[in-house]
């Protein structure tokens, strides 16, 4: 039996659909990441799961019990969960009292409360500041207090909404570290919303892609990133190259996709001839060379560089091969090869590096 299950969950605000028929099942001990762009409905879904608001229709089961049953039931269930909302909110009292609140509300005895709060303070590395007013903390520290405040109650389910949004990379890394240690130490079931797919990949063992109020795909992180099931998901998991075409031949699992202009992309797929498809190629799977080379890669196109943009240690290179292709190479390679606007290059990628997606 899943710990949390939603059945045809819908939510509307002012007659506008926010969530449409959400069906998710989350097992005990699972770390589930809800990924999706801003405004997709991730926060609303977390609020519904935490029973902070009622769905327009559909049901939520917590540990097998229908949460829409009564207010009393929802209150009891909410006490078995903890929700860290996106904006780190701390109460205008000391750090210690902030963390102690949840335990006080549950009537935990003072001696055990003291011990629990102290050990959590140590975990987040803020023991020395326990008497300081929490309002004086930085964003990253406040978020650590917010997470500590949630886990001190030893929830069965921890809900995290964009835990590292608006934080600098260093603070974000500390938060991720904290989440990882919670996963290892407590084995808490976690549902986290994030728009950062790589974060989902790092922390979660299952991912749900929420776009426009609907769950478009769930699966293990690798699967979602390498084999998106629809164009929207592919776009979101930053497959920059989504090229539409039609399958013109299929032989022993290798298909040829005609992408127009007498150009063919070879790929691994089981779709039949005549099927309209998208050929998805991740930009990091494309190799650039100055001259045509012989290799095992099935796809090679000549084109002219139209744009070079630096992305950290990488260069994002746009090439016009009669169709638009984006490649990601290290800055050093780009410099050594002299890749700049106007240069002619060969873009090469393997048939296994192409994910074929049926046009819906």
């Amino acid at each position, binding site marked *: 039996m899943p710990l949390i299950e939603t059945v045809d969950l819908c939510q509307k605000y002012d007659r506008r659909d926010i969530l449409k028929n959400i069906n998710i099942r989350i097992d005990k001990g699972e770390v589930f990441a809800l990924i999706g762009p801003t405004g997709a409905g991730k926060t609303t879904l977390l609020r519904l799961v935490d029973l902070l608001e009622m769905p327009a229709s559909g049901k939520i089961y917590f540990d097998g019990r229908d949460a829409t049953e009564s207010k009393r039931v929802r209150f009891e269930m909410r006490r078995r969960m*903890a929700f860290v909302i996106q904006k780190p909110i701390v*109460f205008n009292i000391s750090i210690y009292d902030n963390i102690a609140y949840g335990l006080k509300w549950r009537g935990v005895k003072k001696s055990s409360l003291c011990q629990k709060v102290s050990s959590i303070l140590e975990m987040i590395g803020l023991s020395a500041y326990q008497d300081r007013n929490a309002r004086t903390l930085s964003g990253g520290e406040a978020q650590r207090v917010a997470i500590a405040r*949630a886990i001190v*109650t030893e929830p069965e389910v921890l*809900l995290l909404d964009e835990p590292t949004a608006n934080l600098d990379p260093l603070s974000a890394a500390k938060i991720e570290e904290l989440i990882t240690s919670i996963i290892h130490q407590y084995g808490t079931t976690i549902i986290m919303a994030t728009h950062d797919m790589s974060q989902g990949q790092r922390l979660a063992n299952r991912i749900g892609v929420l776009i426009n109020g609907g769950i478009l795909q769930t699966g293990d992180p690798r699967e979602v990133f390498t084999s998106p099931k629809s164009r929207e998901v592919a776009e979101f998991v930053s497959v920059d190259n989504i090229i539409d075409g039609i399958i013109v031949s299929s032989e022993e699992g290798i298909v040829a996709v005609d992408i127009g202009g007498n150009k063919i992309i070879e790929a691994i797929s089981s779709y039949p001839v005549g099927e309209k498809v998208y050929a998805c190629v991740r930009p990091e799977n494309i190799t650039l060379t100055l001259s045509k080379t012989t290799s095992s890669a099935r796809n090679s196109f000549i084109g002219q560089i139209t744009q070079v943009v630096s992305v950290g240690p990488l260069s994002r290179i746009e090439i016009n091969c009669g169709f638009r292709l984006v490649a990601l190479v290290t800055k050093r390679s780009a410099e050594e090869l002299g890749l700049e606007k106007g240069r002619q290059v060969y873009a090469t990628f393997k048939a296994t590096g192409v994910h074929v997606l049926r046009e819906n």
Partner: protein
Amino acid sequence: MPEIWQGLIKAIELIVTLDPEVMSIAGRSLTISVTATLLAAVICLPLGSLIHFNRFIGKRTLINLIQTFYSIPTVIVGLFVFLLFSRAGPLGGLNLLFTPAVMIIGQMILIAPILLGLTVSAFSGVDKAIPDTARSLGASDFQTVAVVLKEARFAVIAAILLAFGRAISEVGLALMVGGNIRGFTRVFTTAISLETSKGDIELSIALGIILILIALIINIVLNRLQQR
């Protein structure tokens, strides 16, 4: 001019020697206004939280209406309470007119709008995410309201102090429904107005000084609070 100086010196003498007349008036004034403020707060704080936490039709209008009554003239409240408690009035049977009790009721009515309105705005000043944060950490409805109240504590205390300031400094109402009866309903403001018209300015000045001192203390506390 010499009269005023004499009056001032005499007034300080009255205060320093703890003149029984001055002390009894001060004590009565404080008792009546503190009681009125506390009773009004006990009613208005929960009422204000009800207004803030519930969504209903006409909420905005209600708040506007409450704010309009911030500056209601004290004599209008006096007239209303007088009519209510006069012999022929609906509550005349209680025989409360010209007693400290009716003065307390009058002051409560006078300051209720300030307390209500400022409580609502104190709650509105609290981050919208605070109630949800509390509930998500397992707070019951009652515990959630307590958290919000605690977050708004400085603004709420400021509201209570302002209300007290208005209660203790008004004269129209105290005169109309209290009647300025010596040793029974005579308070700072009514005594000052009466003694001044009688020409006994020493007592007036002494009471005036104490009243200003109270105002000063309220102001200092308010400033402290607003700096937090």
